[in-house]
């Protein structure tokens, strides 16, 4: 018997797409916080540039991950033991994505219109990114619960693993 290793399942689009925005957004927040501790040098400008770039790609990826998560939800909720966790996972992921999206546009706006001092703008953006990162980590934790506690979208092998022989 051959193993039913069909990885081209709709519900697996989510794990394929979700890890990039997690990395980018957490990276953007971490780099922005690091840049706060550096005063007026070329390195600070480069870190800010990197953070903004990661934020842009992270936000784009996060919306794609939310779309793929919606596809996965209706499939895994028919199988797992507590569908409520999926709902909380989606809610927190959406909250975090809205926060990061808002932070991105606010950052563009603050840079363009100089509404507040540069230093103040940095602190505002860093605070919002940290807030988003906290929500994102909690959403990721709930995602971990879905996979490692409830086996969401995970193939269950037969007891004797005959399909792998």
């Amino acid at each position, binding site marked *: 018997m051959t193993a039913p290793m069909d990885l081209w399942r709709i519900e697996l689009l989510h794990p394929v797409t979700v*890890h990039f925005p997690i990395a980018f957004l957490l990276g953007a927040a971490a*780099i922005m916080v690091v840049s706060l501790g550096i005063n007026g040098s070329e390195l600070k400008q480069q870190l800010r540039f990197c953070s903004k770039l990661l934020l842009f790609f992270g936000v784009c990826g996060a919306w794609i991950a939310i779309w793929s998560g919606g596809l996965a939800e209706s499939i895994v909720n028919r199988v*797992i*033991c507590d*569908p409520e966790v999926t709902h909380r996972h989606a809610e927190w992921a959406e909250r975090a994505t809205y926060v990061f999206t808002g932070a991105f546009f606010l950052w563009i706006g603050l840079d363009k219109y100089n509404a507040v001092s540069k230093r103040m703008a940095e602190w505002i953006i860093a605070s919002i990114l940290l807030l988003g990162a906290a929500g994102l980590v909690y959403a990721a934790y709930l995602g971990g619960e879905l*996979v*490692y*506690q409830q086996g969401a979208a995970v193939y269950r092998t037969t007891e004797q693993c005959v399909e792998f022989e």
Partner: protein
Amino acid sequence: MFRILSVIGLLGLSMGLTCESISVGAVVAYAQTPTVPVSNTVPVSNTVSVSNTMSGSESVISGKVHKVVPSEREIYVITPDGKKYEYYFNKDTVVTKVNADTNTAVPSSFEDLRKDMKVIVTARKIGKRLDPLTVSIE
């Protein structure tokens, strides 16, 4: 050039950080996995009745359809005390409608379900998941 190299380096760093955080989440989630199976003997609140079967308890919920999601073949039912229940229909779910004239149940389908309809849903409770067995439209 230096900027591009920095971005590539920082991307790698952030990927590493994320893998770390995901691993920690996974370890915590794994550590919290109950080792003793929980029995389905606790009655469900807001149900008209609950009975235990070999494959999980059976619950009967009476309420109004709060939302119908045709693409998912899913409905949300809200009880008079405001509790919301989610049901994903499966191939075995039977939908019936009470004929007002004869007061008998006639076969119906998911497509007949509308928001605010009064329904009685009998479901098999597996963990916290409710698999609908019968949906009776009143």
